[in-house]
Structures are given as structure tokens and as C-alpha cells.
């Protein structure tokens, strides 16, 4: 039997003793804080008004985070024998580590330092100086009350498994895998399609240099495929991720190819002999056919085909087996089952890419209804020499060369009806298309754009080049694409109805072919993927990085990195750079051999837990298990990331979080309300 739960806040406060020696440090942050908050007054107030709570010194300094600022704290810890430190500065996200390290350097346990934000939460959000100063005092007071109840903590140290999982075999994932493998560490590269290569393998040319996409990509694919440090798992999907940084256990489903990889030589006879033609919706964007046993394209890595059991005649009707009959190495195995693999890895790079915006949703553009309206990916296949038309840009009938082509930018992007964001690559993609159409057909090309976005190296030069080639640019959002003529010259054409905002009039432009420069959107299953890996998505569905500027590679889950379009739309160079950056992070972690993790953890008081199981399904890190015998829930401290979800949910109050105890939080609130001062002085 312990203290009654309903004890009033005032009582709790009077029980705590002012035995600590606390230093309060108020940062100017240049004028960021000092421009709004009277920092000197806050420091003096803390020293005077919070003296009875143990504050022995209050100081202000221009930049507390500078070496001089840190030295100031270190000196005070030693000379004034401080036992607690409160720094009133920016968000703990930025400098908590800095000040904890300063405390550690001076011999104080780093967890006895509390950073309270008077920048993000005070000076940046207020203009009234007096009120902001009063609020800063309250925030400091809250920090003082909280830090009194801090306990010294030791970081947990865990070893890091040297293997890495890379999910997604597009260019970002390939780059990441290669960098890590080249450094001498093992990589599992998991790809759900039969081959790695991603979207880049579907393109003909890349902007702005017009390199052949396959020519620059396939060498990298081969390198990954043959690298001794890479285990390639194509036609495979990650089903489950358990564990934490340094020690992830990943369950991968290796889908049955129905082809024995050890025997298959990749000769291609099975594909040749397979009598079943299937429309290839993935690689050929629906414009071409593949067989029921197939490799998506000739340079596919690995070379082994997969069998599409939904369309295979044998699986449909029980007869055929042409592939088996003709296979020279007996590599076909109709009975092959999915395999479940369990991988141990220390770090994970997620590079699962994007889906193309579904242009059918913009019904006024007629895609899916008007045959000669194409999506960008369809056009990539049309213009690809290895594509269904051998690179001939023709209408849907497969033979007619267009005489006039309209390219519509921002389809599904920068549009309140669909996606608010800019898909980044569509302007350059549209320009590339204009160039290719012009070069190969001589047709008149119109580009319909809202704003031309050609940032980055050599992009705008490419725009100039396309301008000089004679492409016509119409600035305005296309209202409609129709095949209903109003004038004789529109007969038999598609008409692009657009407001030309530069000419200031409505125009109807007849063309033979329309290419929609469709935007990018998150994978259809991005949210499930995020949940599986314990990450979060923005409202758009892109994965959220740890910091939008300073850490666009890490996530809030330690040991999981993101690369390429999974984080947001980007072009190939950026995807490659991010893939390499993620690899550098992973290598940095592996090199450390072990890692110290925050000791902020949840734990269950076994006496109070009644096994109601409310918490069981909530943990994003799968750290909670239920002990059937004892009828209690347990938190695995190694898996717990200290997020506090279970602490908040536990109706019995049986779960508490280190460094976020009820006592600490409520005391901070009491401090904020200035209940620790007999006569609160309000501004």
C-alpha cells in the first residue's frame, strides 16, 4: 500500500525537498530569443525566485551552444558543485545532446540536465515581449521542478550486427547496397518484382544529358547481382520487422518462382516456348506483352524467370508444361513453395520508391477513355528502343506517327483536387519528352505548363535547348482534353482546351497525341510499409525524415534510413546521392561496433498490471508481450524505444517511462503554473 493516487498537486510539491544545487542558463540565441524575451530578467528571476527550489546560479549568454557557453556550464558545475542543470534555449531536438555532453565533461550525469525550449515555444511564437518573458520564466520554472526529479541514467550499450537490409532494388537501393557491399559488409537486397532496376529500367533517356537509361543502370545492376557481399532476394517481400537498431530480425517471404535458381541458366527457352501471352502492366505499362513465365526485360537481374501462376495455363487448366518440357536443365518446378527467410541485420535502408499518379483520376484529361492520351510511363516505353514499338513514337494504333503532340505538365501534382505537392521531375520529364518527340517524329510539340521548374545543374540549359528546338510553350493549366470538335480543323484530333495566361485568352489546340506528365505519389501500400518498419508517413504518404533539412536520410526509428522517392519526389541524381548517404550512415553505425541507446524506456509494474491487454497491440516496436502464465504484460527493454504510447494507454497506470514519470511530468506542470512560488508574479 502506497500513497493515494488522488493527492492534490500542491501537496506533492511541498513534499519535495530543495536539496539540489541547480544552475539555470538562459540563451540569447543571438536575437532569436533575446529579441523577444528579456533573457537577463529571466536569468535573474530564476536565481532569485527559485532559490528556495535549489537554484544557485542564473546566467544568460549570447550562444549557450558555443564552446564558450558550454565551458561556462562546465565551470559552474565544478566550482559551484551543481547537481542539476537547466538550459533554456532551443528545442531539445537540436542541442539536448550538446548540453548533456557538456555536463558529462564536467562530471555530471548527462541525464541530470534539462533543456527547455524558449525559442520554438516562446520567442518564435510570441510578439508581446512582456508576456513572452513571463512565459519564459514559467517554462524555466517547469524545467527546474522537473530536473529536481531526474535520476542519473546510464545509456544502454548494444552490439551492432554488421549485415544490412536494403529494401527496394531501384537506383537508390542499388546505390546504397553497392556502397555498403564495396566497403566490405554484407547486404541483403530485397525487391518484390522479379528483377531489380526499378522505374529507371523502364526509361529510354534520362534528362538532361539524354544518356541511355539502361546503359548507365544495367552495369550497376550486374555489379549488385554478382557482388560477393550482396544477397539478392528478388520476387521477395519483407513481412515482419522485429528488434531495434543493431539487432533487427527481419522476416522475408521469398515467393515461389517455380524456377529452381540453382539449375536455371537464364537461357530463355522457357519464355520462348511458353504459349501464353499476358499484357505486361508493370514493366511495359500495359503497352506490351510478356509470357506467363518471364523475365521482365532482357537485362533483368537476376536472370532467372518467374512464373505467373495466375496466368499460367498449367495452373489454370492442369495441362501444358511446355516450359518444363523444353527446359534443358530441368529447372522448372511447379510444386515450388514460398520460402520464409529470417534475416539478422543491424541496419535497414528503405528505398521502396513511388507509384505513378493514376491519370484516370483526372477525368477531364480523358486518359483511359481517349486512346491517344498517354501517361509518362507509357511514353517512356514507346520511346524506348527495347520497348513494344522499338522506339517508334506512334499513336495507340501502333503505326501512325503523330504530327502534333501536346505534353501536359503537373498532372496530379500541384492540384488541390489531387496532390498539393510538386512532383519535382515532371517539368524536366516533359521537356525530355518534347525533345524526343521533336527528334524522332518532327511533330509540332506543345508543352502546357503552370510554372517551369528547372532547378539543379544543367536543367535550365536543357529547357533553353528545347525552346530553341522549336517546342511551343503555353503557360496555363489545361482545362480539358476532348475529341469533340467545334471547328472543322479539329475533326479527328484531340483538342487541348487551355487558358493561355501569357496571351490572356482561351485556346483550343488540336493535336494527335497527348502525353500527360504524370506526377509521383507514394506507393499504394506505403502506410502498411511504414507501419511494418515502425516509421511514420506525412499526410501525403511520403516517409518522414528525422529532420527536413539537417537529416533527410534518418528516420525517427534509429537504424532505419530512407533513400530515394520513398521520402518524397526526386530525380535520379538526388536518389543516388541519398542512397549513398544512407549507406554512409549505415557504415558509420557498423564501424562503431556497438551503439549506446537512450535509456528512456517503459517498464511494467508487475504488481499493478492486471493483464487487461489494452497495451498489447499498441507498441510500434513490438516490444510488448503477454505472459499467459502470470497474466501480465511485459515490455522488452531492448526493443522499447521509449515512445510512451503504452505509458499513456495503460489504464491502471502500471506502465511508467524512465525520464517521463508521472511525477516528473506533473511537477513540470506545477512549475509551469508557478505553484512552486508562494505569490506568483504575473506580467
Amino acid at each position, binding site marked *: 500500500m502506497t500513497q493515494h493516487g*488522488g493527492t492534490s498537486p500542491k501537496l506533492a510539491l511541498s513534499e519535495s525537498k530543495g536539496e539540489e544545487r541547480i544552475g539555470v542558463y538562459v540563451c540569447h540565441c543571438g536575437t532569436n530569443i533575446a529579441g523577444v524575451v528579456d533573457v537577463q530578467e529571466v536569468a535573474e528571476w530564476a536565481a532569485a525566485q527559485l532559490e528556495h527550489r535549489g537554484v544557485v546560479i542564473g546566467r544568460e549568454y549570447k550562444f549557450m551552444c558555443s564552446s564558450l557557453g558550454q565551458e561556462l556550464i562546465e565551470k559552474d558545475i565544478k566550482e559551484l558543485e551543481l547537481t542539476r542543470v537547466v538550459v533554456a534555449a532551443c528545442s531539445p531536438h537540436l542541442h539536448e545532446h550538446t548540453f548533456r555532453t557538456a555536463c558529462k565533461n564536467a562530471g555530471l550525469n548527462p541525464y541530470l540536465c534539462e533543456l527547455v525550449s524558449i525559442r520554438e515555444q516562446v520567442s518564435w511564437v510570441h510578439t508581446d515581449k512582456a508576456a513572452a518573458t513571463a512565459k519564459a520564466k514559467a517554462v524555466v520554472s517547469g524545467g527546474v521542478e522537473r530536473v529536481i526529479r531526474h535520476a542519473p541514467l546510464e545509456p544502454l550499450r548494444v552490439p551492432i550486427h554488421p549485415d544490412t537490409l536494403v529494401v527496394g532494388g531501384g537506383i537508390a537501393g542499388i546505390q546504397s547496397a553497392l556502397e555498403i557491399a564495396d566497403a566490405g559488409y554484407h547486404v541483403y537486397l530485397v525487391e518484390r518484382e522479379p528483377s531489380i532496376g526499378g522505374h529507371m529500367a523502364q526509361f529510354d533517356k534520362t534528362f538532361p544529358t539524354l544518356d541511355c537509361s539502361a546503359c548507365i543502370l544495367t552495369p550497376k545492376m550486374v555489379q549488385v547481382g554478382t557482388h560477393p557481399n550482396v544477397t539478392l532476394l528478388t520476387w521477395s517481400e519483407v513481412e515482419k520487422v522485429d528488434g531495434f537498431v543493431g539487432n533487427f530480425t527481419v522476416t522475408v517471404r521469398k515467393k515461389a518462382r517455380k524456377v529452381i535458381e540453382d539449375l536455371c541458366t537464364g537461357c530463355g527457352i522457357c519464355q520462348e516456348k511458353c504459349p501464353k501471352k499476358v499484357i505486361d502492366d508493370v514493366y511495359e505499362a500495359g503497352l506490351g506483352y510478356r509470357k506467363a513465365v518471364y523475365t521482365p526485360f532482357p537485362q533483368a537481374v537476376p536472370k532467372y524467370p518467374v512464373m505467373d501462376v495466375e496466368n499460367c495455363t498449367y495452373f489454370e487448366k492442369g495441362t501444358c508444361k511446355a516450359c518444363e518440357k523444353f527446359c534443358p536443365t530441368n529447372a522448372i518446378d511447379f510444386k515450388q513453395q514460398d520460402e520464409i527467410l529470417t534475416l539478422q541485420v543491424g541496419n535497414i535502408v528503405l528505398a521502396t520508391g513511388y507509384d505513378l499518379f493514376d491519370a484516370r483520376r483526372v477525368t477531364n484529361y480523358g486518359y483511359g477513355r481517349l486512346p491517344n492520351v498517354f501517361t509518362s510511363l507509357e511514353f517512356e516505353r514507346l520511346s524506348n528502343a527495347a520497348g513494344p514499338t522499338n522506339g517508334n513514337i506512334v499513336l495507340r494504333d501502333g503505326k501512325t506517327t503523330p504530327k502534333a503532340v501536346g505534353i501536359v505538365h503537373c498532372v496530379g501534382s500541384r492540384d488541390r483536387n489531387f496532390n498539393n505537392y510538386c512532383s519535382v521531375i515532371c517539368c524536366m520529364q516533359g521537356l525530355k519528352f518534347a525533345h524526343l518527340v521533336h527528334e524522332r517524329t518532327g511533330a509540332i510539340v506543345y508543352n502546357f505548363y503552370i510554372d517551369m521548374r528547372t532547378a539543379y545543374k544543367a536543367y535550365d540549359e536543357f529547357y533553353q535547348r528545347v525552346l530553341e528546338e522549336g517546342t511551343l510553350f503555353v503557360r496555363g493549366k489545361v482545362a480539358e482534353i476532348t475529341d469533340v470538335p467545334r471547328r472543322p480543323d479539329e475533326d479527328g484530333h484531340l483538342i487541348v482546351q487551355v487558358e493561355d495566361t501569357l496571351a490572356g485568352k482561351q485556346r483550343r489546340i488540336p493535336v494527335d497525341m497527348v502525353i500527360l506528365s504524370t506526377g509521383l505519389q507514394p506507393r499504394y501500400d506505403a502506410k502498411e510499409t511504414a507501419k511494418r518498419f515502425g516509421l511514420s508517413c506525412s499526410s501525403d504518404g511520403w516517409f518522414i525524415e528525422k529532420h527536413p533539412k539537417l537529416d533527410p536520410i534518418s528516420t525517427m526509428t534509429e537504424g532505419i534510413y530512407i533513400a530515394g522517392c520513398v521520402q518524397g519526389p526526386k530525380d535520379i541524381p538526388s536518389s543516388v546521392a541519398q542512397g549513398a548517404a544512407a549507406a554512409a550512415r549505415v557504415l558509420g553505425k557498423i564501424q562503431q561496433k556497438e551503439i549506446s541507446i537512450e535509456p528512456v524506456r517503459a517498464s511494467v*509494474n508487475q504488481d499493478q498490471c*492486471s*493483464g*487487461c491487454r489494452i497495451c498489447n497491440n499498441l507498441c510500434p516496436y513490438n516490444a510488448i508481450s503477454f505472459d499467459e502464465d502470470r497474466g501480465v504484460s511485459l515490455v522488452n527493454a531492448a526493443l522499447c524505444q521509449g515512445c510512451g504510447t503504452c505509458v499513456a494507454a*495503460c489504464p491502471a*497506470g502500471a506502465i511508467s517511462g524512465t525520464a517521463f514519470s508521472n511525477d516528473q511530468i506533473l511537477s513540470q506542470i506545477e512549475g509551469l503554473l508557478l505553484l512552486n512560488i508562494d505569490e506568483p508574479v504575473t506580467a
Partner: protein
Amino acid sequence: MSDKPKFAMYWAASCGGCEIAVLNTNEKILDVDANFDVVFWPVAMDAKYKDVEAMQDGSILLTLFNGGIRTDENEHIAKLLRQKSKILVAFGSCANEGCVPGLANLSDAREIVHTAFNTVSTDNPKQVYPMTSYDVPEGEICIPKILPTLKTLDQVVDVDYYMPGCPPESHQIAAVIDLVIQVLQGKAELPPKGSVIGAGNSTVCDECQRARNVKTITSFNRIFGQEIDPDLCLLEQGIPCNGVATRSGCNARCPTAGAQCIGCYGPAEGVVDYGARLVSAFASVIDAKEPDEIDRILDGIPDPAGQFYRFNLAGSLLRAGKSAWEKA
């Protein structure tokens, strides 16, 4: 007067159920009489406040105080009994956390009086309202004044022990009486001051025999109108059972009988705000992603204050609604 230790019991703003629960200990009540001299117990015997006022400070060994502090009379007697008692026990939900009378803290005192004297339930054509004092030929007569909010006992005076329940279970009362008698005989020691007595340290789920699984709730239902699985956790069946957050000690009587726990034993050990705990626990297991769907599920709880704060409003962090709080 004998030299037996003195015993008192008082009711403030309460229903009388606590006294019945004491009497319901059956022959155990004889032990009380055998070991104590009952000096003040308005429901059971006649006594005057002035008799209590005349007692020596600390002369009553044990006072069981039930009811919340709703009037100035309640407050006066609470302070008086505190002064005269060695051990003051907040007895029952009202004294502990406000209980159902505490729900009136959602309204201010004027609204409460208006509701009682001049709404559909009361025919009051002459607009007659009670007055706290009235002059009659014999002199001035007074009735107690209503306070702006109902307070729990420990919001008014220092409390030694807390005994929850609405009412406390008779077997728990009997056990506490036994304990006190053993202490008097030198066979046991009192628990530390501030302890919760006559209850468990876990939650009702701990005493509930229903099977429990991982919870996902797609709708909140009432106990009528659907088939209730007699062996499965009620909350899993969408019945908003408060047992998950409620202190153990009642042997899970309601859930065992097929009705949801309404939370009369108050917050579990260490819980600061009972209702907030429950809200976040229920919200955690709602299985829906779309806002509309979430709204539909939440509409299954038509009276959130009654569901989550039926017993604990006055003892919660907020204590009262804004209109009452501002006048307090």
C-alpha cells in the same frame, strides 16, 4: 462512558449507502460495539454537534467519514472531526473522489438549485427558492449554504486513510474493522499514513475471470440488445467496462454478473486522473483509421462525463467544469 476507544461515523454529501454497507457486515457490527464506544453516528444514534465540539482534541480514535463536502455544514463537521479524531478515514467514493454528487461540479451552484427547484421535475409556479436564513417570530433559522463545488474530504482536511467503493464492500469493511481491532490488541500495525485500505493494488481485471485477448473495438454497445459472451472480456465485446482502470477490491462483482464495471472503486494505484486514463485506454484500442469511422465509434459513448468521471470528477485533475470552477 467506558474507557473503550471512541468511534465516530459521519455522512456529508452522500446517499446513506455507506452506512448500510457498514450495517451489512452483519454480526461484525457487534465487534465494533464490543471494542469501541460509539460517540457520534447521526444515522444510528442521536448526538449533537455541540457534544462533539466539547470533546477533547484527538479523543476519537477512529472516524469513518463518508460523503463529499458540498455545504458549509459538511465543511465545518469535516474540520471538527479532523480536530477530534486520531485516525480520519475517507470512507466510500464520495469522501474519496466526489462520486455521483461530484458530477454536479459540471454546473455552478445556481444552476444546480435551479434544476432542483424549477425544472420539469418540480412544479414551482411561485418561483419559491430556498433561502439560507429566514426570520421567524422565534428568531432566525438557517440552513447550510451550498458551496460553489463539491470537494473531496482531502481537499478540505488532512486524511489518514482512504477506503474506496460505492459503497465499500462489506467484506472489506469487516477486514478493516478486524485490522483496527488487532492493532488495538497490539497484534498488527497500521499501514503508512495516506494508504488506501480495504481494497487491492491492482485493477478489477485482476479479479475478473473473463478471458482476455488483444483488444480491438469497432463499436461501443450497451449490455442489452446483443448476445453477451459470458466468458469473454466485456470490453472486447464493445461494452465500455471501466474495470481496466478501476482499483481492485470488489471481486469484480459487476463484470462477473454480466454488467460493465462503472468504476466505483476509483483509480488504480498511482493513477492521477482516472477519467483521462480511461479515455486514453479506450481510444488506444479503437480499431479505425478514418475520422468518420472514429466519430461513429465514439458516438457509442453518449455521455463521456458519466462514462469516464461518474465517480472521480471532483477528485480529478480538473475537479469541476468551468462555470463551477470560476466561482470556487
